[in-house]
């Protein structure tokens, strides 16, 4: 599954003159490779045995460096499978988008290669079952993302890219220390073994230290408030495809890691830190919502809304209950679909209007570009958690989980979290409605006095191209599907979550 994009990216290293000359051919090629990956991912979905979702399936297990107990161990279970499909889908859609709407700056060859490498890292992270291997894939993502932001980003791209890289690298350094700390004490690097042993062999002190290190490491990626400050810059400056992948999948690596590695490896540490994690999560929800209310820039606003949404995911994790963690995984997928869509739309708006500034955009988009505006409305409404759409279930279940947290956790605290989180959800609705009121409704902005004629007469907004339809519609369909039948997804994740928490 990871082999296809890897091979595809390697082939692109060949000199241009000998292999696929011309940008269009390269883009088509990238589309083909990621399409093939998506097909493999879908066939994995088909081959998956839904009777035993907690069992790791489709395994590859080879000794790699037996001297240090390193194995090349890949496999998918109910937790990773949806994320793998999400990654493959979003990468495919991004490449589809790039085919017709390449970001300014040229270098299509490099961009396609980087996106494919990114896909390798992402899928690899979700299917790795060996801690070191997990870490390697986790890191593979960094450099391509850095280059994507630094090469094709907006005006402040260099600073944003560096900030992204340094934050995440600091996180992963601590993460490595934390993971190894548990692994050495428990005596295995294999993640299935770690989940089975439930931290056996590691003392309470070790687990507490290790969990703290891992939470900081994953928290930077997730991003957890107050470690999120790299995110708005990176999102704002990144090109559309960069933002989509960043929000859609990269952030999920953090929460996935928490569920997959940190919780089962150090359960006592998790119990110790869970209230704090919950506190930070709630702070993230409220902070994200308030920050959104103050934003003037479309992409930046969506970026901050990610902080809020990931706060719900983290709150779900912090409850340490199957309900909460299911909510977290559900929220992951929902957020990937919706925010991916939102960033696609924001990119499209920016392309057409030449600005992402809410005031400059003015109102009346429903009149000027009815289709685009309807898409935006749909995505915003989905993101604010309207029942019946994907965003709703993740948030609601997280709050329900917080109402009845794990027995070892202080219930009053979590109920408070729940209330505050609920307020945060209201605020979320407020800023999305404000967004909609501001740009889709109302009158088109009048040309300000004194502005040059060229700037004021914006002319008709370009219609949505077929490629854009093709990359947006699947996300909309899935948002609806997951929102209307949440059971499809919950059924897949429930059993493995129980297994990870040490239950039957």
């Amino acid at each position: 599954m990871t082999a296809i994009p890897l091979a595809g990216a390697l082939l692109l290293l060949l000199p241009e003159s000998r292999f696929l000359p011309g940008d269009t051919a390269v883009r088509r090629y990238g589309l083909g490779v990621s399409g093939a990956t998506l097909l493999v991912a879908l066939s994995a979905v088909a081959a998956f045995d839904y009777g035993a979702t907690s069992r790791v399936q489709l395994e590859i297990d080879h000794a790699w460096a037996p001297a240090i107990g390193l194995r090349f161990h890949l496999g998918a279970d109910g937790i990773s499978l949806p994320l793998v499909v999400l990654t493959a889908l979003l990468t495919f859609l991004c490449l589809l988008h790039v085919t017709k709407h390449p970001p300014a700056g040229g270098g299509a060859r490099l961009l396609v290669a980087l996106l494919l490498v990114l896909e390798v890292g992402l899928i690899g992270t979700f299917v790795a079952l060996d801690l070191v291997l997990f870490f390697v894939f986790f890191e593979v993502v960094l450099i391509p993302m850095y280059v994507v932001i630094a090469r094709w980003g907006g005006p402040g791209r260099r600073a944003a890219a560096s900030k992204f890289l340094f934050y995440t690298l600091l996180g992963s350094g601590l993460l490595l220390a934390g993971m190894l700390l548990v692994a050495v004490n428990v005596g295995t690097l294999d993640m299935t073994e770690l989940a089975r042993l439930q931290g056996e062999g590691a003392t309470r002190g070790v687990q507490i230290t290790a969990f703290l290190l891992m939470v900081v490491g994953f928290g930077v990626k997730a991003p957890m408030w107050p470690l999120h400050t790299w995110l708005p810059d990176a999102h704002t400056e990144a090109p559309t495809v960069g933002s989509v992948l960043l929000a859609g999948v990269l952030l999920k690596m953090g929460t996935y890691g928490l569920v997959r590695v940190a919780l089962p490896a150090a359960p006592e540490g998790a119990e110790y830190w869970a209230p704090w994690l919950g506190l930070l999560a709630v702070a993230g929800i409220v902070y994200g919502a308030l920050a959104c209310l103050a934003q003037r820039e479309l992409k930046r606003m969506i970026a901050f809304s990610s902080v809020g949404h990931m706060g719900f995911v983290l709150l779900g994790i912090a409850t340490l209950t199957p309900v909460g963690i299911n909510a977290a995984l559900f929220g992951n997928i929902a957020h990937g679909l919706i925010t991916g869509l939102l960033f696609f739309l924001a990119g499209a708006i920016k392309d057409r209007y030449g600005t992402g500034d809410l005031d400059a955009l003015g109102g009346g988009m429903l009149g000027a570009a009815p289709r685009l505006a309807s898409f935006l409305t749909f995505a915003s409404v989905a993101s604010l958690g309207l029942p019946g759409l994907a965003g709703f279930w993740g948030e609601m279940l997280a709050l329900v989980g917080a109402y009845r947290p794990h027995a070892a956790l202080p219930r009053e605290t979590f109920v408070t979290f729940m209330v505050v989180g609920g307020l945060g959800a209201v605020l979320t609705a407020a800023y999305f409605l404000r967004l909609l009121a501001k740009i889709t409704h109302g009158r088109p902005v009048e040309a300000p006095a004194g502005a040059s004629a060229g700037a004021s007469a914006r002319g008709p907004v370009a219609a949505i191209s077929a490629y854009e339809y093709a990359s947006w519609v699947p996300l909309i369909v899935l948002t609806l599907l997951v929102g209307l039948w949440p059971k499809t997804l919950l059924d897949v994740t429930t059993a493995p979550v129980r297994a990870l928490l040490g239950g039957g």
Partner: protein
Amino acid sequence: MIQGIDYAAIAPPLIVVLAAIALLLADAFDVPRRVLGAVSGGALAAALIAVIALASGGRRATFCLPGGLRGNGPPSCSYVADDFTLLFQGVVLAAAVVVVLLSLREIADARMPAGEYHFLLLAAITGALVLVAARDLILLVVALETLSLPVFALVALRRYDGVASEAAVKLFLVSVVSAAIMLFGISMVYGATGAMHLDRIAPALQRLPDHLSPVAGVGVVLVLAGFAFKVAAVPFHFWAPDVYQGAPLPVAAFLSVVSKAAGFAGLTIVLALGFPAYGHVWGPVVAVLAAVTMTLGNLLALRQRTAIRLLAWSSIAQSGYMLAPLAVGTRRLPEAVAATIAYVALYAVMNLGAFAVVIGYGARGKRFAALDDFRGLARTRPAAGAALAFFLICLAGLPPGVMGLFAKVVVFRATVAGGVTWLAVVMAVNTVIGLYYYLAWAARLFAAPAERPSEPVPGPAEPGPAVRAAVAATAAGALVLTVAPQLVLQAVTAAS
């Protein structure tokens, strides 16, 4: 009494030392420079083959205590060619071949006497080869000095250059002081234990009477100081930047790779074989040394503007990472030793590669290539630029430089396993600092070339075939190890 000598075991240093003498003589008879270079490289290659041949056989030891003097003690051999030794000899020799390749052009350009240069280089390499095989303190000191002395001369070989002379004097002074400290330490250890062979010192330290243990403790720490100089650890580091800058660049590469690898070999030998009983003493000392070394090296590397000084400070920082696993003391020591060796071996490839590109493609005509001189290298010379970027990313320890990542993982693992978690956290912070300057440099490679309207454009450097071969060899090594890092990891675990 006549002692039997196992000539097979000492073949690698023997070949090198004979070649060194032959080169000195040949130079006196005006043999052309080209031939001298070929002989020098050929001898190293032959020694490398000898090492590989020895590796297939079992452990060999020579210069042992004769039966009559041995008493009931262990065999006590001074020179042992086991897997550990051969691994390091292999690393040293392979790196030395690359250094010779890099030197060929430099000798001609800098008008250095070729015969003396090669003689001194081979003499120093002999020292390194013996050092990694030495198992008693006297041989260790002799080998360490054999490694150090020719280097002073090598650094100063550009006689017309004041900077080089200053660098040589600085190196000499620090070296002499550290050697003196180390000898003092050795005398204390000897006084306390009455033994010089490491396999006798170890048990003696274990059953040392209480009133002697402070003496032995101080002695152990002082011996450590001697090696700290060799690996350029803080506080014996400050010679490194000036010397790297003043010395001919291939010599700087030699110092930062071959000499440092040998130093680490010596350090691990002494600590793991000789002083395990005093792990509680040297463990914390090494931990502090490692933390300070990596932090200081990285922070100062941030401020550098020339390639060579950046490499100097960064290689100090890298020494910190290599020291870190040894901070565990006796807890899981074999694992820690394996981690250090693995890091040294991987580091040798990456750092030598970076040096090779800097030597071959740094702006010529100027004495020191500034980092900005590398702007756009990836556009004017894609292969060299890509190679340098790859080496730098490896050194930073990020994919796609999987090799560097694995080096870091191994070191982290050993450190954490030994219970020195705080050091691992310090390392995590340091990797970020390190990334900053490596990445800033790598990003310059891909940036558009700087506009230089005022001065005449010096034209891209034209590296000779030898330097190209060196770059290609290191790049190939780095690629192979990136795809299959387990090659080194396995070999290392087998050796320790």
